[in-house]
């Protein structure tokens, strides 16, 4: 029987994969978790879970003892993503792992991606420092391991749906708060994959014996639009404000990131002597004394000069523009600008992948889960809803 280590087993995808492989019964599982705090979904199954620090090469190597396959669903800070993956790949090579399945993301193709990113062969061009950039660096490490002889597969899912989907929860919250706008009546393509479909794709990749560090898109393979997604969530929203429609230009404007200011000695000096910084420094008696001397010195200049000095340091008083509309969730809204529908043809041809859940079924399962887990159908919902109103 194959022995599969699932790294990041307590996450959304990892948990579903563990549940599916357990139900199949043809696999010995080694679920590896980062911390017990997030592993409740798996713990309820009564299976042994092993906490592993991916930054410890020794712990990672020990955790893979006896394993024939590895699935990497882990996430973490940049150090964990890069050094942790390095440890995982090194241990996998040492343990002569038969197949390494790495979970990547469509974001490796950039945001927005190259128009040719309907296929996996398109160039990757993530913005430096972005999540897609880190995932792209990970992909390169896995590809390098593949070229060195370790059979590997890289799966690139888009937004993941289904029960417990964080993506759908975020979108639902944004819709409720009036923080979402639709580009061109929602006609833009929305790439989604049901979590069960993705887990099924991973299962196929585990059994695939020929691909070497190939990247595959795994999607629901349906022409879903953002309007479809919004409509899929609308039964969960009471008295929702209508979702405003915006043009491409307007969406670009409202989701544009503020440019980071350039380094400036003058700005830094102003910041250092600003009232915010001096207030924090005054908590220490030495700095309080220095600041007191500074202020007495400034007072000796006379009121007019003191005021001019203050204005030079603090700048003019700024009043923020108060827009009556709530600020949009730029991260979610900007996804509509991606404009590309990723095709899972390669996964269908080479892995034998076929989605086992439709997008409609995925959304219905999400709604069922949401209603039950939040008590919407409970006879006490009329009381519980007061807690949601209080939180707004």
């Amino acid at each position: 029987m194959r022995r599969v280590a699932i790294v990041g087993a307590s996450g959304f995808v990892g948990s579903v994969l563990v549940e599916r492989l357990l139900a199949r019964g043809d696999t010995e599982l080694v679920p590896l978790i980062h911390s017990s705090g997030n592993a409740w979904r798996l713990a309820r199954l009564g299976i042994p879970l092993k906490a592993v620090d991916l930054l410890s090469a020794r712990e990672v190597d020990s955790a893979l003892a006896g394993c024939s396959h590895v699935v990497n669903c882990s996430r973490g800070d940049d150090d964990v993503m890069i050094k942790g993956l390095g440890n995982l790949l090194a241990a996998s090579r040492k343990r002569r792992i038969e197949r390494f399945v790495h979970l990547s993301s469509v974001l490796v193709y950039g945001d927005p991606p190259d128009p040719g990113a309907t296929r996996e062969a398109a160039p990757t061009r993530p913005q430096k420092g972005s999540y897609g950039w880190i995932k792209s660096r990970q992909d390169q490490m896995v590809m390098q391991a593949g070229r060195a002889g370790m059979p590997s597969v890289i799966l690139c899912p888009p937004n993941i749906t289904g029960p417990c989907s964080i993506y759908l929860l975020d979108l639902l919250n944004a819709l409720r708060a009036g923080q979402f706008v639709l580009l061109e009546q929602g006609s833009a393509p929305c790439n989604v994959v049901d979590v069960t479909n993705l887990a099924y794709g991973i299962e196929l990749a585990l059994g695939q014996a020929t691909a070497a560090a190939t990247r595959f898109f795994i999607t629901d393979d349906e022409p879903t639009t953002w309007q479809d997604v919004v409509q899929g969530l609308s039964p969960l929203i009471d008295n929702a404000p209508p979702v405003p429609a915006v043009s491409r230009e307007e969406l670009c404007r409202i989701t544009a990131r503020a440019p980071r200011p350039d380094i400036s000695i003058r700005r830094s000096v102003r910041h250092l002597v600003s009232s915010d910084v001096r207030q924090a420094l005054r908590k220490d008696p030495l700095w309080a004394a220095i600041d007191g001397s500074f202020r007495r010195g400034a007072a000796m200049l006379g009121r007019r000069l003191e005021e001019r000095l203050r204005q030079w340091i603090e700048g003019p008083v700024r009043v923020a523009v108060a827009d009556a509309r709530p600020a949009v969730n730029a991260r979610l809204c900007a996804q509509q600008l991606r404009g590309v529908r990723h095709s899972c043809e390669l996964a269908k041809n080479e892995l034998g992948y076929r989605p086992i859940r439709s997008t409609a079924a995925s959304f219905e399962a999400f709604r069922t889960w949401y209603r039950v887990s939040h008590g919407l159908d409970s006879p006490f919902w009329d009381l519980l809803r007061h807690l949601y109103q209080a939180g707004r």
Partner: protein
Amino acid sequence: MTERFRLALVGAGMIAGHSHLPAALASPNVQVVAIVDPARERARSLAQAYGVRAVIAADVREVLDEIDGAIIATPNYTHRSIAVACLEAGVATLIEKPLAGSYADGEAIVLAGAKSGRPVAVGYCTRFRDNTLLLKELLDSGHFGTVRRFAHQFGTRGGWAPVSGYNLERQASGGGVLVVSGTHFLDRMLYLWGYPDDMNLEDDRQGGPEANCVAAFRYGRGADSFEGCARYSKTVQLPGGLVIETDRGIVSLADYDRAEISFRPRSTPNVEHVVRSLGAPPYRADMPVFQRQLSDFVDACRTGRPPRVDGRQGLQSLRLIEDLRARRSAMHTDWYRAVAGGR
């Protein structure tokens, strides 16, 4: 001047470092003389982190002669052996909730406390909230009218990860989210209304500790009876709080230390009253609940009065948990099954 209360902190894990040790160090009448943990290095590290000069021991038995009381903040299944050892040596115990991993273990602790004559306090810290005390007073006085129904919920996506990871082992923790999160409200529910007449439980465990559960309760019979529910999750973020329907309106209390009680009268449902006590508060307003709890424990040890949450009350909570489990049914978790054909 009264001598300082000599305290041992047994267990140097998360709750000890996060809550109990800061509470002890903030208490002028308490001296932390020992930190005990089988992993001495962990105990030493905790002492160093707070600059505490204390005896470091692997077993509480090494320091029993040097202490007046012990806070037991270890995995639930270890509470019995540690507490009984303390009590038999005449050392009072403040035991982190729940009292024990099982009713039988809890009973043994309460019995040991009765024999020794030393206090057994249970760490249900939310009982020391001003809002809990005020709610009890107002419900008892009939200020809000007659209770008809109530609902409580608390949910987080993961969270609190004990150093030992014992929370994921059913035997070690004594249960899942019902014990870890729910037991605080169950204790308050017993405090507010006593033991329920009927109850049932749905949870999602399949061999391990449950991650989600919903409990239902009924109090009394006939016209004066009322029902309630309690929902807990370690996978879903739920705004925590208690809502009570009375014949006069809706009472709400969010589940955090300084939350204020609000009341929406039935007669004017678009108006919400914030209810505050103008009386003298039993504790200083800015004193954290863990410090209040410790202060109560030390005072109980010195005056001979029972602590605010004593062993017998802790035992009632364990009885309630076991009664709920005896009426347990499986929660629906196959979310796709309801979807036609699975597709």
